[in-house]
Every structure is written in structure tokens, then in C-alpha cells.
């Protein structure tokens, strides 16, 4: 097999992996702070993908620009979801939270099915088939733009959590729930904000992903599992870990698709997940609890 081909596949996997990483970042942020595993994460991703499809069909809005309105809408939605449904569940056992989010996910998948039907949808932007060459390497323009936006969004998120007072307050909640309450932080509001921020992340990831793949309602559960695999591999609650995990999974999927069979690609992701859980349960970049 030609080395250029392998290298090109690796590059495509890496760029897709950055978008995966952003999606997983949303899950990681939510789990790291609220300590609730968002089992409806992939479903939210598909809703964002459909939102981008609708905005493109109605207003010819480029998905790269649709990122902004969809992210704002998802922030509000995530905030409301946490404030109304999930906040009462944060003290309940894990299986109870799991059930709640499974029910939410079921409603989301089938709501999409009701509205859009089972057929695949996509967007046809002008630069869909454009690519540029760098020596023997080929770069897909849409993929590069999507990856760049994903990196920029992640950087903004890092800055938010590191530099702003609000971000620090949220991190305080994550570090010590009781301590945060003692110093007078409104933990429930901060949880809702965090869920909003995590939802906005997945909204951006969804708008970018629609540039790379077609969307159907049933993609939701698959993306949920993918996001889990990525955050566990990278380290649940670790933000750089989510990006690293995304890139690793993106590249491993691409290589498995090339060398073995496209249908077997997620088998390698799950094998990686099992290995990481056994030998480094805190994830590659996670802190040991």
C-alpha cells in the first residue's frame, strides 16, 4: 500500500478526530462538573446536525456560520434541561440518572424520526469537493475548516475555564461540591450553566460534522457510544484528554477502515476502550481519583 495513501488517511482521521474531540469535550465537561453521564449526548449531536441542515436549506447558511445560532440555542436548551429535569436527579443513584437520560434520548431520536423521517440528509456547500495539495498530501477543504473551527472552539472553552471568574467557579464546583456551597456559590445554577456550555460544544461539533457525514436519526446512539469511548480513553473530566482521545479514535477508525473493513472500525475503538479501562482506568490524561 502506498505510504501517501496511508498518510492521507491518517490526516483525514486526525482532522475528523478533532471534531470528535470537541463532541466528547462537551460530555467530559458535563461529567467532570455535574457528575452526570449524559446518555443523550449523541442524540443532541444529531439534533445539531439537523439544525444545520435546516438552516442551510432555508437560508443557505453555511454550517460554519450556523455554528453560532445553533450553539446559542443549545446553550439555552442545555441550561433548561439541567435546571428542570436533571438537577433533581444529581443526588439520585447512577441507574436513576441513566434511566432519565435514556428516556430523554429515546424522545430525541424518535422526535427527529417523526420530523425528518429515516432518510439521510446532508448539506452541499460549494467547497465540498475542493481540496489542496501539500506535496504528496491532500487536504480536504471542508475537513480542514471543520477541524480548525473545532480547535478554535476548544481553545475558547479552555480560556473560559482557565481565565474567567465564572469558569473558575464552575471548576470549584467540580473539585469540591460542599466547599463550593460553603463559599456561597449557587451550585445548581453553575451546574445548569455547565450543562449549557457542554451542550453548546456538542452543537458546534454537530454543525461541523454535517460537513463530513450525512445524518440520520439513528446515528444518535452510535455517537453517544463514540463520545463515551473518547472521554474514557482520554480521561473522563480531562479537557485535553477529550481532544487527544478524539484524535486517537479518529485515526484508529480511519486506519481500521483502510486496512481491515470499514464495518469493523468501531471494534477497534471498543477494544481500545477495554484496554484503557483495565490498565489506565483514569484515562490517558486523567488524574487518578
Amino acid at each position, binding site marked *: 500500500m502506498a505510504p501517501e495513501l496511508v498518510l492521507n488517511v491518517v490526516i483525514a482521521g486526525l482532522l475528523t478526530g478533532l471534531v470528535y474531540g470537541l463532541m466528547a469535550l462537551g460530555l467530559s465537561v458535563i461529567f467532570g462538573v455535574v457528575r452526570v*453521564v449524559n446518555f443523550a449526548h449523541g442524540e443532541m449531536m444529531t439534533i445539531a446536525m439537523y439544525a444545520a441542515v435546516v438552516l442551510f436549506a432555508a437560508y443557505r447558511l453555511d454550517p460554519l456560520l450556523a455554528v453560532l445560532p445553533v450553539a446559542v440555542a443549545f446553550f439555552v436548551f442545555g441550561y433548561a434541561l439541567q435546571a428542570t*429535569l436533571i438537577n*433533581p436527579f444529581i443526588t*439520585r443513584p*447512577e*441507574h*436513576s440518572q*441513566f*434511566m*432519565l437520560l*435514556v*428516556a*430523554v434520548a*429515546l*424522545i430525541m*431520536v*424518535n*422526535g*427527529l*424520526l*417523526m420530523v425528518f*423521517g*429515516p432518510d439521510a440528509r446532508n448539506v452541499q456547500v460549494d467547497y465540498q469537493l475542493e481540496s489542496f495539495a501539500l506535496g504528496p498530501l491532500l487536504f480536504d477543504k471542508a475537513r480542514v475548516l471543520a477541524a480548525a473551527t473545532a480547535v478554535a472552539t476548544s481553545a475558547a472553552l479552555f480560556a473560559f475555564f482557565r481565565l474567567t471568574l465564572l469558569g473558575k467557579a464552575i471548576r470549584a464546583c467540580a473539585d469540591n461540591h460542599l466547599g463550593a456551597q460553603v463559599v456561597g456559590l449557587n451550585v445548581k445554577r453553575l451546574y445548569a450553566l455547565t450543562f449549557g456550555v457542554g451542550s453548546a460544544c456538542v452543537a458546534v461539533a454537530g454543525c461541523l460534522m454535517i460537513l463530513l457525514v450525512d445524518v440520520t*436519526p439513528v446515528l444518535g*446512539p452510535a455517537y453517544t*457510544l463514540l463520545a*463515551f*469511548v473518547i472521554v*474514557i480513553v482520554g480521561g*473522563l473530566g480531562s479537557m485535553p484528554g477529550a481532544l487527544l482521545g478524539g484524535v486517537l479514535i479518529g485515526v484508529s477508525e480511519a486506519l481500521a477502515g483502510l486496512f481491515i*473493513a470499514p*464495518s*469493523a472500525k*468501531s*471494534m477497534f475503538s*471498543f*477494544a481500545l*476502550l*477495554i484496554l484503557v*479501562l*483495565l*490498565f489506565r*482506568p483514569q484515562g490517558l490524561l486523567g488524574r487518578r481519583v
Partner: protein
Amino acid sequence: MTPARRAGVALALLGAALVTLPAFAGSYLLSVATLILFFAYAGQAWNVMMGFAGQLSLGHSLYVGLGAYAAAGLYFHYGIGPWAGVWLALALCVAAGLVIGFLAFRFGISGVYFALLTIAFAEFTRIGFDHIQWLGGPGGLFIKVEQRVAWDLPNLRGTPAMFYYVILGLNAAALALCAWLLRSRAGYYWQAIREDEEAARALGIDTFRWKMLAIGVSSAMTALAGVFFAFYYNNLFPEQIFHISRSIEIILGPIIGGLGTLFGPILGAAVLTILADGITELMAWLGIEVPGIKQVFYGLCLLVVVIFRPHGIWPAIARRLGL
């Protein structure tokens, strides 16, 4: 009457009703009852792990699928009936369960991480079976449907009523086994581990060993559900039987019914199956044919139960009935 007496009488009445059901039920009602009993049994098996021992498995479809494929594969390729296949199914599922349990419990994986590990194994196996052409791959494995009149119990070929009695018998056995387990030494140790694993260990309970027993018993019970599934439906697809939605279907019953209770899995399976069928009937009656609308209603009902009945519906009913 004492509560125990009342419970015994109620159970006897229910048992009598269920045993006589095929005499007057039509084929539709019988198929719904069989489906309810299938989920009640699988839920009972899962409940041993989560309800008794507190280990959240989200990958029980793995054992259903392995059990189903083991027995169906033997029958399909060598004509060896499930009377032998069931032992292979048991051996495979218990082995899989013990390997997963050993890895997870040795490495101290619990809670959400354990749940994700079980999903990972089930999904890994699902995609793996998609690539085993010998067992039909993604195209599915089909068992020949023959002679539906006489009962051929060792080969599990027969009328719908036979399948109904088989799964009813499995349920009765599972209920008895679980009732006994719950009052045995293992049951008390499991409940101690479920409530507080650290404390259980401090009391000198070998938590590793008892958790291994829980996953072993649960996977063995689920293996039988898989064998039943294979021969009742006569077709197997990795995409369906190993899928995470199958695992979720299995665990909804016990959680809605009442986690850790003996009757919760049965009641939960009945409520959910009747709800799903009722919604289908209602939509047909209203003439609404929108794909997905049934599941949206189903999801909303789940949401209501999870929010307002966090401990399931059976504990409240049991209190009301004075059981």
C-alpha cells in the same frame, strides 16, 4: 393473614391464572404474554447483579446474544438440539461473565466505569459477530421452522403454547431461585456490598468473590433467555441481539418495576410491554402513522415514572396491598 401468607395466596392465584391462560387466550394475547414473560425473566436475571449486588451492567445483551448464537449455531450446523446447546450457552455466558467480572473487579472498576466496560464488551462482540460468516454475519442466522403442532421439548420445536409454558417455567424457577438467594448468605452479602462496599469489606466480606458469584449467576440465567429467544424467534441478527438497545430493554423492566425486589422485574415487564402495545393499538385506532411517535410516547411515560416513582412502582403497590 400475615403479609407472607397474603403474598403466597396472591402468587398462587397469579400462577393459576398464568397456567390456564393458553386455554382461553388467542394467539395475539399469548404472544404478548410470552414477550412479557421473556422480559420478566431476563430482567430477573439482570436484577441479581444490579438489584441485589449493586453492579450496574449495561451490556446484558452480550449474554442473551452469546446464549442464543451458541444454541442456534449447534442446531443450525450439526442438528444438535437446544437440550445440548443450552449447556454450551451456559458455559460460554458464564465464562464471558466471569472474565468481565474478573477484569473489572480485580482492577477496581465500579459504577459508571463498570457500566461502560460492559457496554464496550457487548458492542465489541456485536461487531465481531457481524464478521463471523459461519454464523451468518450481518445477514442473520435462521433456524428452520418445522412442525408447529407437536411438542418437541428437547429440540424446542412446537406450538406457541409450548414456548409460553417454557418461559413461564423459567420465570417460576427464577423467582424461586432469587427468593432463595435473597435469603441466603450470598444474598445478605450482596446487599451489604450494594449498600456500602467499603463497609462490607471492613466486615470481612470477600467482595471480589461475591461479586463474581453475582455476575456468574446473572450471566447463566441470561444465557437461558438467549436460548429461548433463538428458538422462539428462529432468527438472529448481531445488529439486534447484541445491540445496546436490547440491554436497555432488559433493564427497563426491573428499574420501572422496582430494583432489587422479587416481583419488580415481572411487574415492570408487564407494564412496559402492555404500554408499548397499548400505544401501538391507540395509534392504529386513531389512524396516526408517523414513524417514531410511539417511541416518543413511550419515552414520555418512562420519564414520568422515573421522575415520580424513583423506587419503581412495585414497592408502592406492595405497600398498598399490605404484602
